[in-house]
């Protein structure tokens, strides 16, 4: 290009952004088969089993890999899409399965399927993948252990298409745990060939996908953009959309503007206020699914500090401004957890029998700490959009009782460290367990094994007995009794006050259909439709 041509081109281009865009027709055909999703941040790896994988990596595992089983889809009441039930499994890579007569193993028959490399999926690949998940350490191994899958010896490849899992104990969570985004099936031959000597090909799988799933990763620019393209050879019926572009857009205002202007098709993770506004405006579709097994809560340290006195914990539960929290912090995007009547049920989460009643709260504080107390409440700066208004409301509500609360906001990297110290008197936080059983939630949050999620450091041997009983019993009546038992204890002892069950919100154009919600909370590209 000579100087004159360059100058002419530049002059033309300076005016270009203010003219109608060219080639619009050519692009529109591609657009009809492409979904543009904007999100706060994208995957930091392609390997959900690897250490340090971030939340969006679940989406890679979900869409680019297959598991042995998946969950039955359940339509949402408002028709916005589907959620799931963990209590009914559907075949994915396993065509079918049979539990042994002694109830101590299960044998899977694999379907004819091909990896992206063209190699057939065999039982050897399944074994290698599950061996990897239980051996690699970190989150993957912890999640496998939650379903009593602990040792590689439990996984047996009988022949190319037959695979067996031996149980080390009967655990109702084992089968559902095979459908989460950890025990996905990896093309072991390809992974090992590229591993450079590492038995689990950690480095290679971090940057490459070797699955059999419905989508392949076309390009991945960490911190910027990930493009998925349909796997035309997938064993199941082809997804409707050919390409999925996910862009990482940090500013929620920009994400909202993109959606409202119609430039983005789907936006995940906006502040509750934006979802409430978008839902009210009605220009785009907002689908909210109550997060299964998830609540926003205010925990009180029952092992150290002022809240070791149960009367003070109950006082806080009576003083909590439940309605205001729902309106001001969550903008209605949640399910209330206050004012239960008629005793505990077997559901979780379920409302506690408290509502805002300052008289009762004052009476309890008078008994326990007539002189008043000064304390502090800890929350994560990364969740401040919701947690900070809650903390302010809690501070306001407790001040008239003589409980003076200081706010302690810490950035994400420090928050986990603070939780691990287990000395914060009050914490505002949210928790959601992937496996939707009350005993699973209680095991992490209230059991005497005192995991990092037992933020209240609650210790109660009676409750431990009930939790352990519920986890491993096969008897329905005994299970129900145990669940009601530990829920009743939690309601009476209030180590945490449940504030609300949050909605997992997703905003999308009205032309977008087929939204599917899974435990990992990442959108399922296989199900989306457009137009």
């Amino acid at each position: 290009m000579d100087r004159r041509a360059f100058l002419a081109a530049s002059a033309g281009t300076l005016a270009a952004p203010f003219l109608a865009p060219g080639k619009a027709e050519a692009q529109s055909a591609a657009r009809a088969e492409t979904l543009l999703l904007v999100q706060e941040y994208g995957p930091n790896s392609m390997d959900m089993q690897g250490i340090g994988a971030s939340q969006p990596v679940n989406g890679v595992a979900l869409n680019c890999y297959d598991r042995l089983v998946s969950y039955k889809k359940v339509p949402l009441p408002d028709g916005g899409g589907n959620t799931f039930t963990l209590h009914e499994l559907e075949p994915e890579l396993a065509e079918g399965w049979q539990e042994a007569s002694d109830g101590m193993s299960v044998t899977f028959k694999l379907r004819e399927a091909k990896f992206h490399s063209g190699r057939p999926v065999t039982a050897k690949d399944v074994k290698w993948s599950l061996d990897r998940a239980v051996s690699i350490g970190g989150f993957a191994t912890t999640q496998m252990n939650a379903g009593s899958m602990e040792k590689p010896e439990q996984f047996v490849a009988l022949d190319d298409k037959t695979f067996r899992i031996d149980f080390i104990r009967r655990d109702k969570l084992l089968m559902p745990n095979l459908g989460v985004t950890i025990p996905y099936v990896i093309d072991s031959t390809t992974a090992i060939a590229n591993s450079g000597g590492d038995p689990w090909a950690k480095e290679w799988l971090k940057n490459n996908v070797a699955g059999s799933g419905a989508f392949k990763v076309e390009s991945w620019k960490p911190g910027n953009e990930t493009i998925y393209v349909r796997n035309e050879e997938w064993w199941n019926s082809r997804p409707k959309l050919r390409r999925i572009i996910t862009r990482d857009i940090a500013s929620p205002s920009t994400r909202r503007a993109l959606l409202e202007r119609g430039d983005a098709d789907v936006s995940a993770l906006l502040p509750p206020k934006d979802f409430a506004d978008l839902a009210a405006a009605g220009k785009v579709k907002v689908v909210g699914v109550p997060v299964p097994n998830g609540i926003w809560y205010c925990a009180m340290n029952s092992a150290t500090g002022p809240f070791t006195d149960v009367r003070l914990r109950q006082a806080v539960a009576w003083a909590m401004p439940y309605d205001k929290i729902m309106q001001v912090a969550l903008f209605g995007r949640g399910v209330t957890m206050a004012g239960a009547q008629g005793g505990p049920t077997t559901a979780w989460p379920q409302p506690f029998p408290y509502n805002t009643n300052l008289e009762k709260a004052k009476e309890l504080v008078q008994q326990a700490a007539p002189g008043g107390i000064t304390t502090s409440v800890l929350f994560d700066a990364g969740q401040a959009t919701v947690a900070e208004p809650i903390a302010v409301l809690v501070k306001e509500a407790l001040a008239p009782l003589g409980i003076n609360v200081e706010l302690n906001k810490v950035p994400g990297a420090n928050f986990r460290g603070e939780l691990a110290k287990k000395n914060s008197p009050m914490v505002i936080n949210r928790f959601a367990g992937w496996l939707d059983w009350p005993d699973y939630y209680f095991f992490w949050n209230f059991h005497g094994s005192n995991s990092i999620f037992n933020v209240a450091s609650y210790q109660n041997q009676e409750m431990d007995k009930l939790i352990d009983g519920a986890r491993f019993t096969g008897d329905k009546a005994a299970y129900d009794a145990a669940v009601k038992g530990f829920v009743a204890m939690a309601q009476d002892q209030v180590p945490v006050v449940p504030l609300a069950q949050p909605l997992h919100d997703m905003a999308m154009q009205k032309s977008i259909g087929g939204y599917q919600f899974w435990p990992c909370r990442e959108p399922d590209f296989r199900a989306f439709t457009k137009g």
Partner: protein
Amino acid sequence: MLRTIASRLGTALPSLAGVVVVTFLLTRVLPGDPAAYFAGPVASPEAIAQIRAELGLDQPLLAQFARYLGDLARGDLGVSLTTGQPVLADIAARLPASIELTLLGLLLAVCTAVPLGVLAALRQGSWIDHLCRLVTTAGVSLPVFFTGLLAVYVFYFLLGWSPAPLGRLDSFMSEPARVTGFFLVDSALAGDGETFRAALAQLLLPAITLAVFALAPLARITRASMLAALSADFVRTARASGLNGRTVVLRYAFRNAMLPVLTTLGMVFSFLLGANVLVEKVFAWPGIGSYAVEALIASDFAPVQGFVLIMAILYILLNLFIDLLYGLVDPRMKEG
């Protein structure tokens, strides 16, 4: 000239060494445990310890430093935990985006600020002087994220003149073949007019936002140093000698007034390069500022160290470049 460059680079070495030590120590002193952060939501203490060992964080500080220096000597800046990629690759991918944006923003700012400042100095107290004052006050007092969001709201959301603030290129376009990493240059080299237009359209709004911010100090300095130059003896002499106004202003006053403007320009440039985080966030610009801030929030040491080091090197080179420019603008500076 070459000797000047070599000696200047030589004196920069101690400062670089200082930067290396300070960034290493700073990132270690910062609160927060990267191992706990990256162990994920249901990590056991053993899992956290395992990650800590993997990151080498269980070693004594001196051993960590020795390891860091060794890696540095091999050009290895470590691996970012937030993106999972080598820091050098991340920075190489993102630096051109930041530089392209900053350069264009600065170009726009200079093209507006210098004439504005010169005119304001020539016509003191006139409407253009007031305009200059208004623009500089607005530029300094409006926070960048506010101007950015306002620009997005008006030009994209309401008017629809500007393309979607989706980063450097529309999602449905492909990047030009990489030569310099600057999309404008690369697409022009490839002769791809459509990509050039698209990239420029994406660039314009964030660049203007930056320019509004950078304009203020430049216009103020131009005006002030122009006033000083215009009241200097040599200008009076030139006028008395009957030279025409144009020659006096442009050749004598302006050239002498340029030195402080150049200094400010250098400072504004290096400041903008790292500090336009907010513009990058609003426009989803895959630049280096937001990269460093995100790493800092996650206690991700390697990118923060890499960022500070690269910025220090850039700053040193930039200062050198500005000093060499002095010599061109004002031959008297060559000796110093």
